[in-house]
């Protein structure tokens, strides 16, 4: 009944389009804020260089923004297109933050972004500054609402299952809004975006300084980016979304998988610096442990135990068994809608319904599920440990590296020595991709680590896909792969041209390398 090839291709398509969209969003988040800061300095000091900086970084912001908008439309429509059962099952809750995002945030951002570019001569200095801040505000509000929606997928609060409509329905909007997982994710994600924006400005400015071009603009940009980047990179790590990881059962599973922690250890648990996880035998073939560290990071205490994967699987098994009862009760209610006693019973056991649905891939008739099938379904709650373990470590390593990098840059900048160290400038240039590496890893940890659930504990991913055909998926995937690759090539090309051309001021010495670039064509302002 469910075609697993279609499910897997749908998952691949969603991941690919989301990861791709997520290349542009962080830069929009970071640059919009940096633009607002630079323009504020311009308005306060009246010095023209700050206006040129705002306009130059603004033009790069625009090149990136276009791709963010283009790939964002896909995200909103894909839920209905590829995940129609998901859309029916949780649209009552999940749709609301998405719709409010459009009304409150994306309208603000998109309406004023046009004025940011076209309003320089039509608005007062202060008027334009307000517009720039509104773009930054819109961008950040947009992230907030999207992460409220995403937070609910990780920790579905404020909703119950309604047997009459066969879907989850909202009971408490405030709980959805103030979901602790969503709050933690918001701070963590926008800080990561700020870090990416700061790194972008640092790297390009460093390139100018290494080539002795646009020195005034590059130096000032670096100072702003170094301070902003330090604050942002610290906030990514300190306010990381680990704080939300202990709120629910699967978040516990996710953290156990990230740590490849199979057994519950006496608190405080040790941290696996390096491990070779063996999913089939449920153990690590090798592990290099640092005592106590994990327990302290994970629980912020010395006495709270962190549960291992095996213990969490055992608990999941109980919930699968309860899930069978919930499922059978639901079927009974559907057949006898007036049985109030059954409805009463269901109100107590519905939270395990999702665990029952995990069994549907092994048997259509849950009442006949064997012990083996139940054990298998319970073990399905373990995400794929090795990729999580490693992506998490890459993300954290990069995070700490970026703190070190921005702290050094900030110290050098505060002594006015940032531009005299070619080594530091080269490091800045070559560190450019790192925030994106960490960000994409972060997405994988959060969303791949959520598997097998699309809505944690409520709806398994495989159960949520649309009943499409393989041909449908083959065509859409081919379109996305071709189009997105072409757009990436074009976007990078346009971006590199704009960077090579620079802020375009007559007072800057001409780039000696520029005329030699093959196929170079003068650019339109």
């Amino acid at each position: 009944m469910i075609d697993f090839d279609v499910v897997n291709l749908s998952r691949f398509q969603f991941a690919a389009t989301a990861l791709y969209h997520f290349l542009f969003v962080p830069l929009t988040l970071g640059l919009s804020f940096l633009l607002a800061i630079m323009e504020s300095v311009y308005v306060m000091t009246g010095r023209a260089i700050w206006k040129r900086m705002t306009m130059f970084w603004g033009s790069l912001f625009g090149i990136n923004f276009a791709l963010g908008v283009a790939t964002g439309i896909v995200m909103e429509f894909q839920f209905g297109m590829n995940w129609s059962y998901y859309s029916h099952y949780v649209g009552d809750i999940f749709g609301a933050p998405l719709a409010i995002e459009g009304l409150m945030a994306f309208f603000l951002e998109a309406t004023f972004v046009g004025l940011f570019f076209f309003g320089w001569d039509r608005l007062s200095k202060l008027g334009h500054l307000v517009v720039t801040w509104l773009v930054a505000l819109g961008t950040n509000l947009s992230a907030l609402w999207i992460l409220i929606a995403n937070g609910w997928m990780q920790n579905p609060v404020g909703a119950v299952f309604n047997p009459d409509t066969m879907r989850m329905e909202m009971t408490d909007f405030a709980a959805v809004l103030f979901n602790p997982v969503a709050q933690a994710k918001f701070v963590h994600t926008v800080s990561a975006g700020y870090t990416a924006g700061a790194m972008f400005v640092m790297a390009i400015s460093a390139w100018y300084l290494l080539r002795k071009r646009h020195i005034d603009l590059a130096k000032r940009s670096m100072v702003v980016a170094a301070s902003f980047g330090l604050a942002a990179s610290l906030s990514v790590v300190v306010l990381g979304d680990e704080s939300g990881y202990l709120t629910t059962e699967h978040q516990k599973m996710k953290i156990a998988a990230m740590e490849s922690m199979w057994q519950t250890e006496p608190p405080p648990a040790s941290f696996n610096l390096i491990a070779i996880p063996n999913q089939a035998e449920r153990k690590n073939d090798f592990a290099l442990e640092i005592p106590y560290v994990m327990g302290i990071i994970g629980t912020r205490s010395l006495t709270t135990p962190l549960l291992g994967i095996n213990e969490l699987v055992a608990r999941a098994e109980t919930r699968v068994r309860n899930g069978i009862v919930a499922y059978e009760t639901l079927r009974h209610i559907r057949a006898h809608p007036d049985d109030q006693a059954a409805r009463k019973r269901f109100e107590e056991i519905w939270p395990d319904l999702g665990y029952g649905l995990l069994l549907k891939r092994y048997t259509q008739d849950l009442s006949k599920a064997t012990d083996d099938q139940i054990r298998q379904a319970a073990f399905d709650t373990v995400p794929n440990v090795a990729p999580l373990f490693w992506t998490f470590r890459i993300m954290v390593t990069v995070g700490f590296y970026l703190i070190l990098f921005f702290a050094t840059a900030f110290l050098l900048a505060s002594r006015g020595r940032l531009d005299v160290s070619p080594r530091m400038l080269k490091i800045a240039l070559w560190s450019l991709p790192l925030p994106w590496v960490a960000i994409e890893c972060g997405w994988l940890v959060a969303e791949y680590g959520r598997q097998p659930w699309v809505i944690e504990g409520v709806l398994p991913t495989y159960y949520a896909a649309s009943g499409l055909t393989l041909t449908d998926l083959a065509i859409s995937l081919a379109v996305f792969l071709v189009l997105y690759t072409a757009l990436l090539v074009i976007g990078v090309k346009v971006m590199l041209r704009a960077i090579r051309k620079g802020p375009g001021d007559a007072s800057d010495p001409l780039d000696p390398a520029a005329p030699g670039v093959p196929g170079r064509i003068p650019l339109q302002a």
Partner: protein
Amino acid sequence: METLIPLDYGTLRVIWWALLGALLIGFAIMDGFDLGVAALLPLVAHTDAERRVALNLVGPVWEGNQVWLIAAGGAIFAAWPLLYAASFSGFYLAMMLALLALILRPVGFKYRSKLENPRWRGSWDAALCFSGTIAALVFGVAMGNVILGVPSGFDPDTMRPVYSGHFFQLFTPFALLAGVLSVTLVAMHGAALLAWRTEDRVAARARRWGARAALLSLALFLIGGFWVAYGIQGHAITSLVDPGAPSNPLTKSVALQTGGWLRNFTIWPAMWLAPAAGACGALLTAILLSIGRAGLLSFLASSASFAGVILTAGFALFPFILPSSSQPAAGLTVWDASSSHLTLWIMLLATLILLPIVTAYTAWVYRVMRGKVTAESIDTAPHAY
């Protein structure tokens, strides 16, 4: 919490039906001219300077305009999750085609004039023309299929959406007529804006093409009307309707009757104002553009026409929002496809607060950007497209 909601479920459903219409009309009027300008690009603007005039007319505002589509999509998800689930997955490949068009658009606007290479610019102009035409065509074809009924239903045990049609079945003669009507409407609308706010040759060509598109829209709309009256089966609920019942589209019975989509107009004759606006607006646009009186009035006439056409379809279908051809009783209606009472209420509050704010600042942005767009005005703008 349920008891604290001052509006009953049925009323909220009707309000959300109206709000969905308002957002779709907002999208048509606001982003319709962006699509139209893009679609008309090769016809109204021949030289590069002329094309830049056309593109920079919509350049400062199209991004905000497109959010009407995003907001409408979000509102369908939040207020009509069954409609969102069934239609977006059912129209999968058509949606992909629309997405392809909509993905090319932002990049086309932004990147086209970044390089002077004529081939580069020519390719993006072609992409923009494709994007405006195809997006409008797909939305129109989808609307035509909704009027015809779509082969979609639900699995009674799980309420999983089931769709039994495929891509090429969407392009029936009536659906194609609706698709072409959608294209001529955006062309009329884009031309009305170009004729009003550009000068010289671009404006002159826009008047000519705008008048043609308006007359074509009028003709297609009238043919479509007769087709619906004499050749297409309308759906009607024959079981008792409880406007406050939980959203379950499988509990009703539905009868089909040729011309049935005109029933509402007999019950509420005031509804005839919608097709009247659709037809008269197009006619007035054609007249004003032909006699060289392009301005705010012709743009408003074109907007009224666009709104009238969409309202006509909405009124005809009511209370249906996605009639089913394969399982008529499983068609989605206002009474059985909405989200919960609480969600509709919260979303109404959010919309009542936010939409006026959006409208206010959008109006302000248009005021700042008012005036004609000319080749000279582009040369002085630092970030012009």
